[in-house]
């Protein structure tokens, strides 16, 4: 029972934080320096791992598709399968998981330690809301960077699939990409980007909220980070189901 209450409280305070942060949207231009810094942290520093992970995911997809489609002679459709799975599902989900692990944990740790070491209290006495200078720039940064990361993830995944198909399955790149193009629509990619955007914003919001609500000392900072990442991962997978259901 208590746990259920905690869950609803968490949802409530997270939504409140979102509303509060958005109510300061007009200050975003003044805070562009923070925004750019966050874009750098969220986007640029996550890029290498997104590239590595997504190229392998694309490769594995191609291997599995090659294995299972060989039986009914549909190997030439590997491109279709890799393309669609990557764009509609694995691209956004994998990028979101990386963002939760890399960006979300960092946000939770930073805000939790600012809370524990009274920096957030100091901001409050200065009448500078944390939602304005700590949360809003991060939200804006993830909103801008997430689609970019997802597109890069998709592209890298497609190429990973194409290379694997060529060297391990014997499907030439032209055949692979023509299959990929034939059944893929613009809407499939948009669909994935929309999902990614939802995941990214939810992850950042949840991690900000958990960080800012930390009470205690160093041990609680660690606990907050763990909780932020676990909650983010659960939410990504649960939301994935519902968003996918809503979009199809």
């Amino acid at each position, binding site marked *: 029972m208590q746990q259920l209450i905690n869950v609803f409280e968490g949802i409530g305070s997270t939504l409140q934080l979102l509303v509060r942060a958005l109510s300061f949207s007009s200050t975003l231009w003044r805070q562009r320096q923070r925004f750019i810094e966050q874009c750098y942290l969220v986007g640029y520093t996550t890029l290498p791992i997104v590239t590595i992970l997504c190229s392998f995911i694309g490769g594995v997809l191609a291997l599995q598709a090659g294995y299972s489609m060989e039986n009914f002679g549909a190997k030439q459709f590997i491109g279709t399968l890799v393309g669609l799975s990557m764009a509609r599902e694995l691209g956004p989900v994998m990028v979101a998981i990386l963002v939760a692990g890399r960006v979300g944990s960092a946000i939770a740790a930073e805000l939790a330690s600012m809370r524990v070491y009274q*920096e957030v*209290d*100091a901001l409050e*006495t200065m009448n500078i809301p944390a939602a304005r200078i700590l949360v809003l720039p991060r939200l804006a940064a993830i909103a801008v960077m997430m689609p970019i990361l997802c597109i890069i993830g998709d592209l890298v995944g497609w190429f990973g699939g194409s290379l694997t198909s060529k060297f391990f399955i014997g499907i030439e790149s032209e055949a692979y990409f023509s299959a990929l193009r034939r059944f893929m629509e613009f809407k499939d990619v948009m669909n994935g980007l929309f999902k990614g955007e939802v995941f990214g914003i939810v992850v950042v919001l949840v991690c900000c909220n958990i960080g800012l609500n930390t009470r205690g000392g160093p041990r609680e900072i660690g606990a907050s980070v763990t909780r932020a990442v676990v909650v983010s991962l659960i939410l990504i997978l649960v939301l994935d189901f519902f968003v996918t259901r809503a979009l199809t």
Partner: protein
Amino acid sequence: MPDTGTTSTVSPFSGSENPAVSVTFENLSKSFGDFAVLKDISFRVDRGEIFVLMGPSGSGKSVLLKHVVGLELPSAGRVFIDKYDASEETTREKVRLALVFQAGALFNSLTVYDNLALYPREHQLADEAGIREKVMRALQILSLENAAAKYPSELSGGMKKRVAIARALVMEPQLMLYDEPTSELDPVMSATISEIIATLKEQYHVTSIVVSHDRDLALSIADRVGILMGGQLVHLSPPAGLRDPGDPRIADFLHPQIDLKNPRFRKLES
């Protein structure tokens, strides 16, 4: 100091004028769980007054200050800044107040300069050149010019304290709350802090509440001194009243005798 209602705070930096404020504690009580920290405290700090609050460690002085800035909410009773309830968020928009935290509470990811500049920048109080002037002035007052580019992790304990005070000065508050401002400072710097507090009062009529164990500070600049013990305000008088407090607990607190033959911790053991 009588409440004339006409005194006003003029900032040392911009010359802007803010009306000085009073602080009223009305039957303030605070418990954490069933541990009562503050018990039914009532007193008033007048406009432009320097009120020094003393008391043993753990008696609830920091908790009391946090009620004034709305960081802790009363379990019972209320705190008013002028006519505004301190627990309401809008009060901090109406009254400019600054708290020098006991532990400094500096922004660790910002340099000393940016720590000081944050408030005027966020509230758009001046252009970058104006802010620079204010910040450098505050740093100068506290002999911190050379630390401007440093990060808080690169500072000594006393330097952090001075940065915290400088950051509060830049805010040009109507109400200054200091939590043990001189506890980590050398005697000269302590005297400087006392002078700053007194100057802010004399020239700019800033109301100050100072939590401090520094008897020199209390005796030389306080208008009134309060002593908090066991969650209650056990003494309230002008500093002269401390010479003969009557209550033996207070006398022992103010002038503890170091008795090597019969130490206190031995008394506890027996």
